[in-house]
């Protein structure tokens, strides 16, 4: 059962990331990977909300597997993030490459903290 929850979450999260990336990348013409950044921040915010809800007793472990490990885990990605950083660096865009790493890390951390603070305010 736990496996099915993770797989179902992953089967929703990955296409959601693909669609998010397409929608965001269609709205600007810089080579900066805003789409992946958006998916990673959204996944981190969701995970923060969910772990906060689990801690407050408002969400079950099963929900955490479906939405946290599955959905948020697959909505966010490290492989595309690192490949896009490599591409920027290879194209000579070293500053954007470094900024992509810095902004992704800081924004995802902020999103997790915000999510868990929100969950605390809502359910604790």
């Amino acid at each position, binding site marked *: 059962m736990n496996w099915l929850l993770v797989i179902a979450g992953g089967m929703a999260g990955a296409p959601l990331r693909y669609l998010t990336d397409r929608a965001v990348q269609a709205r600007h013409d810089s080579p900066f990977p805003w789409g992946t950044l958006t998916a990673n921040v959204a*996944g981190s915010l969701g995970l923060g909300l969910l772990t906060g809800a689990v801690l407050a007793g408002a969400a079950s472990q099963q929900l955490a597997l479906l939405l946290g490990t599955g959905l948020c885990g*697959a909505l966010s990605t490290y492989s595309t993030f690192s490949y896009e950083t490599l591409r920027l660096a290879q194209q000579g865009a070293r500053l954007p490459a470094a900024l992509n790493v810095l902004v992704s890390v800081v924004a995802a951390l902020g999103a997790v903290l915000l999510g868990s603070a929100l969950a605390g305010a809502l359910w604790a």
Partner: protein
Amino acid sequence: MLAAVALGGGAGAAGRYGLTLLWPAAGGGVPWSMVTVNAVGCGLIGVLMAVVGERPGTHRLARPFLGTGVLGGFTTFSAYAGAFEELSGAGRGAAAFSSLLITPLLSLAAVWLGWTVTRGILLRRRRPLPPAAAPGGPAAPAGSRDGAGP
């Protein structure tokens, strides 16, 4: 296309879940299963993108299924950020910052290595080495990764 991404994402997430069951994070320490999942996934996307870039005959669903789906679903940024929050919240500052720094360093090194090595091998295969210019033995041994030619 979306179905390929979804199927791959389910498989990738299951792989990540399986690995964390086999190798649970030690309480309060660096979550090595998360670090490994991300570093391995990044190395493999380097390999995949080099293959897709150098071999035009690759199946058109290879990138959405294996890249966006399997590897995207396998690796995760949310658990990476979540690990920092969890460890720092528990007063494990050293482990929190270790995980924060080690994950991107290993992952970026892995994607670079996977891409560079794979591309080198594919270019070498496609263009056989010219006859050795210098007498006295082969210029580059078969297993050498550099000197892939112009």
